C-alpha cells in the first residue's frame, strides 16, 4: 500500500515537472519568435541525449563529451536555440561497458529522447546500433571509429573518420618513413583494437608493407605486454602498430616495450589521446619518444574555428580540449544543422537530413560531408609524443587530407 502511494506521488511529481518544462520552453519561444525560420517549427524544447563512459577506465573520454556538449549547447542557446527552441541535454553513463551502454540507451529512449550523441567507444556503440534502428532513434557517435558502426539506410551516423581510414593512415606512414616490415600488438577481444588491426593489415598489403609479426592480448585488463614486445624484437621489426587506449599505453605498454628491448617506433590511433595525463610520475619518461598516433584534430591548429573553440573551452573548463571533445562539439552542431534543414526535431526527419550526402558541415575537426553510410570524409593529424624524461607532451607531425595512392 505504502509502495503504491509512493509510486503515485512520484508519477504526479514527474507530470508536474514535465508540465513545468513545457511552460519554460513556451515562454522562451514566444520571447524569440523571429529566430525561427519555419513557422511550423516544433514547439517546446529539443532534448539531446549523450552516452559516454563518464566513469570507469575511460572516464577522461566521458568528461570530454559531457563538457564539450555542454559548451556547444550553451553557445547554441545563447544564440537563440535551434529553430527558436532551446536545447536541453540529458547525460547517460555507459561505464565503457556494452551492457551498461544498452541500459543507458534504453533509459534515454524511455525519456522520449530521439537524438543521441554517443557512445564514445566502438565496443559500446556497436552494442546499441541495432537498438537505435529498431527504436528509430538518431545515433550520432562522436568517436566510434569501427567500420561496422554505420551502414547505409540506418539511424547511425558519426562525426569521426572510420578505422579503415585511420588504420590505413598508419600503414601509409610506415611506408613513407621507410619501414617495409612491421609488427602488430593488439587486443583480440576489443572491437576497436581488432578493427584497427584489420584495417592496418589490409592497408599494409595494399602499400606493399609486410606484417611480419602479430601478437595479441586476451583482454584490455591484461597488464603485462613484455612477451609480446620481446617477440617483436625477435622478429626484428622496428615499427609496431599497437591500437590500445591511453589507460594501457601510459602505465603499461610503452614502458614495458622499452624494457623488453624494443627501441623502434610504436604507433597507435586516437585511443592514445590523453596519455600524457596517465604516465607514471618519477619514471624515466624518455621512453615515450618515438611514439606516434593518428588523431582527429590538433588543438594547436591556427585556423579560426579551432582557436575559438579551444579558447572557449579553456575559458570554461580550464583545460585544453582533446579530440573527443572536438568531435562531440561538432556532433552537436551537426544535429543543429540537420534539425534546421529538416525543419523539425523529429528523429525520422533529422535522420533524413543527416543522410543527405550533399550537406556540408564545417566543424572544429574540419569541413566535411557524410558518405552514404554516414561516415565523414575528412583528414587525420599524425601526432607524436616527445619527452624530456620527466613529462610527456604532444607534437603535430603531419596532417593527412586523404590516403596516398598505393
Amino acid at each position, binding site marked *: 500500500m505504502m509502495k503504491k502511494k509512493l509510486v503515485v506521488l512520484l508519477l504526479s511529481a514527474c507530470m508536474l515537472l514535465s508540465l513545468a518544462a513545457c511552460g519554460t520552453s513556451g515562454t522562451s519561444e514566444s520571447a524569440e519568435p523571429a529566430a525561427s525560420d519555419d513557422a511550423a517549427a516544433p514547439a517546446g524544447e529539443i532534448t539531446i541525449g549523450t552516452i559516454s563512459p563518464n*566513469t570507469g577506465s575511460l572516464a577522461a573520454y566521458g568528461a570530454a563529451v559531457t563538457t564539450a556538449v555542454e559548451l556547444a549547447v550553451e553557445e547554441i542557446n545563447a544564440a537563440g536555440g535551434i529553430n527558436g527552441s532551446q536545447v536541453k541535454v540529458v547525460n547517460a553513463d555507459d561505464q565503457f561497458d556494452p551492457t551498461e551502454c544498452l541500459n543507458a540507451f534504453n533509459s534515454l529512449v524511455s525519456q522520449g529522447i530521439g537524438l543521441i550523441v554517443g557512445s564514445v567507444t566502438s565496443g559500446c556503440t556497436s552494442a546499441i546500433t541495432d537498438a537505435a534502428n529498431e527504436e528509430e532513434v538518431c545515433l550520432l557517435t562522436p568517436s566510434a571509429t569501427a567500420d561496422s558502426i554505420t551502414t547505409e539506410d540506418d539511424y547511425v551516423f558519426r562525426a569521426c573518420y572510420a578505422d579503415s581510414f585511420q588504420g590505413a593512415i598508419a600503414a601509409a606512414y610506415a611506408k613513407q618513413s621507410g619501414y617495409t616490415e612491421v609488427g602488430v600488438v593488439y587486443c583480440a577481444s576489443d572491437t576497436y583494437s581488432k578493427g584497427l588491426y584489420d584495417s592496418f593489415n589490409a592497408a599494409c598489403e595494399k602499400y606493399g608493407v609486410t606484417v611480419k609479426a602479430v601478437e595479441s592480448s586476451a583482454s584490455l585488463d591484461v597488464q*603485462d605486454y*613484455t612477451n*609480446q614486445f620481446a*617477440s617483436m624484437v625477435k622478429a626484428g621489426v622496428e615499427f609496431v602498430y599497437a591500437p590500445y587506449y591511453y589507460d594501457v599505453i601510459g602505465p603499461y605498454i610503452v614502458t614495458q616495450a622499452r624494457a623488453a628491448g624494443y627501441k623502434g617506433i610504436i604507433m597507435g590511433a586516437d585511443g592514445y589521446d590523453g596519455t600524457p595525463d596517465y604516465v607514471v610520475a*618519477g*619514471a624515466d619518461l624518455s621512453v615515450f619518444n618515438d611514439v606516434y598516433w593518428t588523431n582527429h584534430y590538433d588543438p594547436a591548429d591556427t585556423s579560426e574555428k579551432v582557436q575559438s573553440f579551444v579558447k572557449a573551452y579553456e575559458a570554461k573548463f580550464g583545460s585544453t580540449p582533446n579530440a573527443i571533445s572536438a568531435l562531440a562539439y561538432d556532433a552537436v552542431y551537426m544535429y543543429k544543422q540537420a534539425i534546421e534543414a529538416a525543419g523539425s526535431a523529429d528523429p525520422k526527419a533529422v535522420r533524413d537530413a543527416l543522410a543527405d550526402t550533399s550537406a556540408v558541415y564545417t566543424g572544429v575537426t574540419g569541413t566535411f560531408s557524410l558518405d552514404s553510410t554516414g561516415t565523414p570524409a575528412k583528414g587525420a593529424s599524425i601526432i607524436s609524443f616527445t619527452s624530456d624524461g620527466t613529462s610527456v607532451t604532444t607534437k603535430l607531425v603531419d596532417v593527412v587530407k586523404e590516403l596516398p595512392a598505393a
Partner: protein
Amino acid sequence: MSTFIQTLIVGLRLGSIYALVALGYTMVYGIIRLINFAHGDFIMVGGYTMIFTIPITFALGLPAWTSVLLAIIVCAAVGVSTELVAYRPIRKRGTSMTALITAIAVSLLLENLAQAIPAIGPNPIVASQIFGTGGFTVAGVTMEWTTVYTIVISAVVMVVLYQFTQKTKLGRAMRCVSEDKEASILMGINVNNTIVLTFAIGSGLSAIAALMYLAQYPKVYTTMGALLGLKAFVAAVLGGIGFIPGAMLGGLIIGLVESFTTSYVSSSMADTFVFLILIVVLILKPAGILGKNVGEKV
C-alpha cells in the same frame, strides 16, 4: 635463448605476485575452511592506500615504498573487521555455503563502495614510480630492479611466513586450529584470537602484494582485485589449498604458464590456459599438487 629467459622472468614476477595473493587465500581457507573471495579486493584497498600515502612519504623525504607500512595496517584492519563483522557471526549461525556467499558479498561491497567514494573513484589512478628506475642486462635481457625486488621480496616473505607457522608458538596455534578446532580449545588455544591473527596476517600480505603489483603495473582501479584474486585462487587450489608451500608453488606455476603461453603458444590464450589447468588439476588430483586428500574440498 633470450626469449626463454625473458619469458621466465615475466613468469616469475607474475608468479611471485600471484603466490603472495594465494597465501592469503590459503591461510584463511586452512583455518576456517572459507574461501575468502574478498581477498582480491584487499589488494585494491592496499593499492589505494598507497596511492594516497605516497605523496605524504615524499613530503617526509621517505622513499615511496615506505607507504606500504600504512597499507599493511589498513589492509589488516579491513581484513580483521571483515572477519569480526561479516564472517564470525555467519560461522556461528549459517552453513559453509552461507559463509561463501557472504565472502562474495563482501567482495562486491568493497568494489562498489570504492566506486562510490568520490576521492577513490571509479576512475583509474596511475601510481608514481615506486622503486628506482633502471636495471642490468644478462644475456641480452634487461632485468629491471623492480622485477628483481618483486621476486626477492616475495621469496623472503614466503620463507619468513613458512618459518613463522612452523617455529613460533602463534604459528603452531594456527596450524592446530586448522587441524582440529575442538582439540585446540582443549589444548588451551584461543581459537577466535588465532583466527583474527590469521586474517590480520593474510590481509597484511595483500598490502605487500599490492606494493609489488603497483611497482610493476602502476595503475589502480576499483576492480583490479577481481581477476588477480581469481587467478591467485586458482593458484592456491592448484598447489593444494590450505597448505602454505602449495600456494607458493601454485602461484609460480600459474605465472609461468601465463607467461610461456603468451610467448610460445598464443598471446590471447594465456587466461584460457590458466583456467584450463584448474579444471585438469581438479580432475586428476582434486586436493591439489601438494594437498592431502581429506575428502571435502572446494
